[in-house]
């Protein structure tokens, strides 16, 4: 074991870098052609993609800002413009980066011609994109997907569906493009294939040892967010799944000595992602499941595409109530045979985080496994107290000894 790392890197990482580089270059080229939209991670991107619009993802760029450890500086630029430090750090760093692209990784995201927000992941996205609109002049389109309580009602689907029709009208008038059903079906097929492969890779983590750890999934999720509905995403997930299958068949785990299996809830601290998870890997802790990367699932394929888009995108993890979140965590703990869970209470993200104190109690009641809530942020490392977090994690791990 001496000299060996506790964590095994994926071979597909180099392919991931190529795919993401191409995505960035495509974004820059599209911006120059006047065909770029910034899109929220839960937006039904199949529609703009089918209409020939390239998408860039500010949340993903937020992850880059975080991992480059420039979150505090870029958030600070937004605070200089008057945005409270209590606001979402994805939004603050995005506003800061738009304000000072020259001081941002890769010169900032390419300039958008439209801003497409879907509030199925949080209410902040509308206000964040409004702020970007004020700075760039790009118009905002809101696809309003009210949170779903229980079963989605017919009037709810009808309302979201009308929003999708308005989206098509908006894109047509903004970009002078049109939507062909055949092309939308092709895009939907690519999206389904990528999501199927991604889901299989995630489910492979039910094996012991788990072939993927949290950091692996958080990095590998990039194409499912930013290239959903395209061929390169399918190619990447095919390669990833092959590698994951290979690991499973050979009994190779993501970490060398798997002892404790935990669930991770919420976005990770991007600025600390390797240090945090690899540090725990050295202690035999692996995270075979998390709620964040499992959020991209389902297919819009079928007879009535718009209906399916309305149903699928309204019912995403963050657009359902607390009980639905608890149910999902309980299901993951059981299916992946986990020993406990870590809830990262992200100060930036009220939609994801407010309620975790109650969720923690419920999950433990229903599964019998212990959990811990740690507090911090995903991009703004000023809000991350490493020593305090370590103490709480240590307390959790002691329960397994």
């Amino acid at each position, binding site marked *: 074991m001496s000299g060996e790392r506790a964590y095994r890197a994926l071979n597909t990482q180099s392919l991931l870098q190529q795919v993401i580089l191409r995505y960035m270059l495509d974004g820059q080229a599209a911006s120059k052609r006047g065909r770029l939209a910034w899109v929220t991670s839960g937006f039904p991107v199949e529609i703009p993609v089918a209409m020939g619009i390239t998408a860039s993802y500010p949340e993903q760029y937020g992850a880059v800002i975080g991992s480059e450890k420039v979150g505090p500086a870029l958030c600070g630029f937004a605070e200089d413009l008057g945005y409270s430090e209590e606001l979402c750090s994805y*939004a603050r760093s995005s506003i800061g980066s738009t304000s000072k692209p020259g001081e941002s990784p890769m010169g900032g995201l390419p300039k958008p011609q439209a801003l497409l927000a879907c509030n199925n992941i949080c209410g902040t996205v509308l206000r964040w994109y409004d702020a970007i609109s004020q700075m760039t002049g790009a118009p905002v389109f809101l696809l309003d997907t009210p949170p779903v309580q229980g079963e989605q009602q017919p009037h709810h689907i009808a309302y979201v569906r009308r929003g999708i029709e308005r989206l098509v009208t908006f894109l047509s008038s903004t970009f002078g493009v049109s939507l062909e059903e055949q092309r939308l079906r092709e895009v939907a097929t690519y999206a389904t294939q990528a999501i199927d492969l991604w889901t299989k890779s995630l489910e492979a983590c039910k094996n012991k040892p788990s072939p993927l750890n949290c950091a692996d999934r958080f990095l590998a999720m990039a194409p499912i967010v930013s290239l959903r509905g395209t061929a390169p995403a399918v190619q990447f997930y095919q390669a990833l799944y092959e590698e994951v299958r290979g690991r499973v068949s050979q009994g190779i785990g993501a970490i060398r000595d798997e002892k404790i299996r935990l669930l991770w809830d919420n976005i990770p601290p991007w600025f600390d992602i390797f240090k945090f998870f690899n540090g725990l890997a050295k202690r035999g802790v692996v995270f075979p499941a998390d709620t964040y990367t499992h959020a991209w699932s389902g297919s819009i394929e079928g007879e009535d595409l718009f209906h399916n888009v309305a149903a699928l995108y309204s019912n995403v993890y963050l657009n359902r109530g607390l009980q639905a979140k608890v149910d999902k965590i309980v299901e993951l703990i059981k299916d992946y045979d986990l020993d406990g869970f870590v809830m990262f209470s992200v100060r930036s993200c009220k939609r994801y985080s407010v*309620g975790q104190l109650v969720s923690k109690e*419920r999950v433990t009641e229903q599964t019998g496994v212990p959990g811990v809530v740690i507090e911090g942020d995903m991009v703004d490392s000023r809000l991350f107290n490493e020593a305090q977090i370590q103490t709480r994690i240590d307390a959790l791990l002691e329960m397994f000894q």
Partner: protein
Amino acid sequence: MIYFVHKEYKNTLTGGSALIEAATKQDSLQLSYGDVARSSEQRLRELSMSRRPTVRYVYPHIPLELFLAHGITPSLAWPDPSVQGGFEGSLQTFACSLARNLFSQRSTGGFSSLSGILFPCNTCDSLLNVADVWRHRFPEDKLFRLTYPAARFDDDSVRFLAEELKILSESLKDAFGRPFSKDELAAAVALVNRFRESAQILYACRIINPNTVSYFELARMVREFLTSPNADTVEPISGSAAAVLKKLEQEGQVGTVKSLKEELLSGTLSSTKIAVESKIPRIMVVGGMTEPLAIASLFKDSGKLSDEVIVLDLLSYGFKTVFTPPVNLEGDPFVAMSRSILNAPSEPTQEGLPRRLEFIKLLLSKLSINILVVCEQSFCDPDQFETPPILKIASEAGVPSLRLPIDPELSDRTRLEGRIQSFLETFGGSPR
């Protein structure tokens, strides 16, 4: 074009404090924010003695008429400035300060008169999740939700909200065994219209002459009605407006005020222009779910200043509730209530920032506002995102602005008062 020139407010229009006393029959200027809060609590306790259920509501844009039509009293869940802790085991410190305050009230034995509570859905993330936490912590409470469209006002959003109102109506009937009554709806619409008409008149009068009625008093009367909408609470504000109108009639200015009121309702102000030569500052207060009485009390208690300097608020519990258009009883009542709610002045929880900014710009220029106060509730995303663009347009309009980070407990009260006082002194609008 309507054009006013006022050298001194007190010499124009209404004749000042004598009118206030005549209208309200009580010297509310002696009351404090705490007194009013205690009075509201007392009113709620009285309500709880009756057999009529009381449902507290968190977000001010609800169909008051619907609840009344079910024989239920809707009562706004006001923040309590005196509440201490109680949320810690359930909510993180970064949940919005209003949500924490309400939760603390409930967990420390408040809300004794509660028959049920209504939370909004699709307005902000904190309140969305707090409703779930509430349901878990207080399973004995009847918890209702009303989901709003966040998208712009159009037929789709009206239809969506109308359906949600039907669901709410069914839930109320099931929970309390009180069916929806069309007769009670008609009475409720009349009652609520009487309140809004009166409050709108007073708002319009205060823009022309802030001495018409003190801002504190107006906020108090609005609060009393929203705490318990009934004939008793509509009477003071209605009487106050009637007295003001009588005086205006003598001066031949009723048409002027009514015209301003209508323009405020439509958000146009196309024929209004107010010019003021008074040295007293004319302040507009903007923000979200900040208690107008808290703001009034900050100004009242800031040394020699009076809340007379506040000529208008654009707060959720103030202007934005008061200037909700009436429910049209013709046709489907649920569609009519939906249309009324969605036609109220836009909130930062909704789509439409550019239009909101345009409206503020219009008010600044047409109403001779020379100071803008922007209230920003702690950990409130909608408030905090909206503040920078508002400050920017104020700056572009040449209107000095003051940003007030605030929480329901006024935990930073001394500093807030100090900021207000020193800002006004810097501005040159020293007290008389």
